[in-house]
């Protein structure tokens, strides 16, 4: 409903003065205060094995759904995007809605883990996490929810374990057609990008390189973001949110060398997931082998995994019960923040409820 009031110059001046004053006072506080505490929901660490970490969040209801839920994080970022702060935590939301939540996330690979390959993630880490969830819950089934490249790992695992415990599969902004990721394609252009030399020299793909790549997807984003922060220093909620997301975005992980080499060649260069011929440790991947109920969530304004890159997945999965949901938002705002609270989380809960008993 449109409401119009004529701007009062005195009121305008008063607002401008108050905000300028608040900016100065709170600006000092901003630089003096510590980073916000993120990912603090109570949990037990079940497995800590090099880069792999499996956590079990403590239940926040007396009765939970039978089927446990395993969140699989992307290998480039920290898992606390799912558990920012109370009230803005997908983990907390799921716990309060009665799900038994586990999370598989990643620490920076140790130097001696530079030889980890896709097979280690798909045929070792994920199966170990799944087995531990089964041990912990005594349930033969589980729901897997993968975010971004965590979704790729989940899909590869599901395709190779068609008779396994997968009850439901959910993917958020998961790339399938890597040719549609135009910016990454340009930077990974095989005519100029010598991935072998990079990996052979550094052992890993450095986090700084990944951070710069992600940052350059929006060349003006950082400057505009800082100007918006300055403009909104008077607004505690804005500042809190900015700090949370800024900290998470800057907290990137290096990638194990062989894993980076393999994903660059098989996915970025040869686009095998889309065009066929994908294999993990010589075992062919057929996405049509995934027949569990499948929910594919795509962000309409995703600048990292554009919709064209993630949308083809739904057609490739063999499930008869499958659904694609396109939501307003970007790559990160889809899963965390005010947008996610309002849009994704209730939809996810609604879809999972009837499939988790």
């Amino acid at each position: 409903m449109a409401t119009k009031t004529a701007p009062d110059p005195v009121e305008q001046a008063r607002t401008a003065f108050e905000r300028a004053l608040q900016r100065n006072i709170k600006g000092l506080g901003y630089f003096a205060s510590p980073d916000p505490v993120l990912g603090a929901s109570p949990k037990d660490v079940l497995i800590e094995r090099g880069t792999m970490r499996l956590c079990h969040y403590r239940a926040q209801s007396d009765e939970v759904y039978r089927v446990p839920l395993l969140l699989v994080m992307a290998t480039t970022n920290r898992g606390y995007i799912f558990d920012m702060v109370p009230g803005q935590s997908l983990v907390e939301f799921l716990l309060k809605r009665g799900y038994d939540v586990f999370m598989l996330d990643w620490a920076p690979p140790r130097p001696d883990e530079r030889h980890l390959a896709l097979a280690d993630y798909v045929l070792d880490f994920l199966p170990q996490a799944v087995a531990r969830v089964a041990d912990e819950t005594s349930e033969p089934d589980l729901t897997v929810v993968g975010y971004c490249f965590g979704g790729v790992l989940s899909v590869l695992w599901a395709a190779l374990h068609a008779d396994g415990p997968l009850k439901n599969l959910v993917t958020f902004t998961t790339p399938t057609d890597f040719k549609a990721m135009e910016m990454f394609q340009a930077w990974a252009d095989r005519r100029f990008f010598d991935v072998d030399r990079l990996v052979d020299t550094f052992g890993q793909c450095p986090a700084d390189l990944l951070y710069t790549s992600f940052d350059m997807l929006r060349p003006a984003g950082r400057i505009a973001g800082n100007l918006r922060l300055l403009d909104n220093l008077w607004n505690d909620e804005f500042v809190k949110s900015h700090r949370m997301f800024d900290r998470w975005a800057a907290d990137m992980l290096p990638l194990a060398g062989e894993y980076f080499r393999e994903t660059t060649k098989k996915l970025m260069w040869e686009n095998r997931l889309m065009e066929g011929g994908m294999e993990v440790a010589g075992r062919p991947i057929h996405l049509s082998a995934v027949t569990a109920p499948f929910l594919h969530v795509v962000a309409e304004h995703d600048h990292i995994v554009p919709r064209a890159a993630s949308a083809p997945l739904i057609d490739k999965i063999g499930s008869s019960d499958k659904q694609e949901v396109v939501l307003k938002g970007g790559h990160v705002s889809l899963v965390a923040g005010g947008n996610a609270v309002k849009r994704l989380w209730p939809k996810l809960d609604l879809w999972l409820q009837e499939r988790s008993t």
Partner: protein
Amino acid sequence: MMQKGEAGPRVKPGVTSSVDADAAPSDAGRMTTPDPGAFFRQMLTQWEGVANQMGTELMKSGEFARTVHGATTAGVRAQEVAKEAMTRALAAANMPNRDEITDLSARMAGIEERLGRIESLLIKLAGADAPTPPARPKPARTRKPPQQG
């Protein structure tokens, strides 16, 4: 964080596809709070959009990729040279280099994992006699979806 100009969703046969109907309402015509910074914000948003678009178009070009990778390769080469020089210097000083420390770290990790497995086996063998922390009560796994209606 949002970009404009995206196409609407396609509905594919055999697949349930839905788009969020809860789109943010348009702010056109809404002017409840007098805000002298509104013009600045509008300009900033427009500048950001244009700069992002121009920047990404530039960066998609082969020339840009060639230049950036040229710089990256030079950096990698410098790193290789420094690594070789450092390896020789460490060898001359009779000290282990990075690769040797990494190998040691891998062997330590292997020993830790093996110790972990031995510990688990010992706990299993000790059975009920082994001291265990009190188990956290587990919630019943009987929850049902709320009735729709």
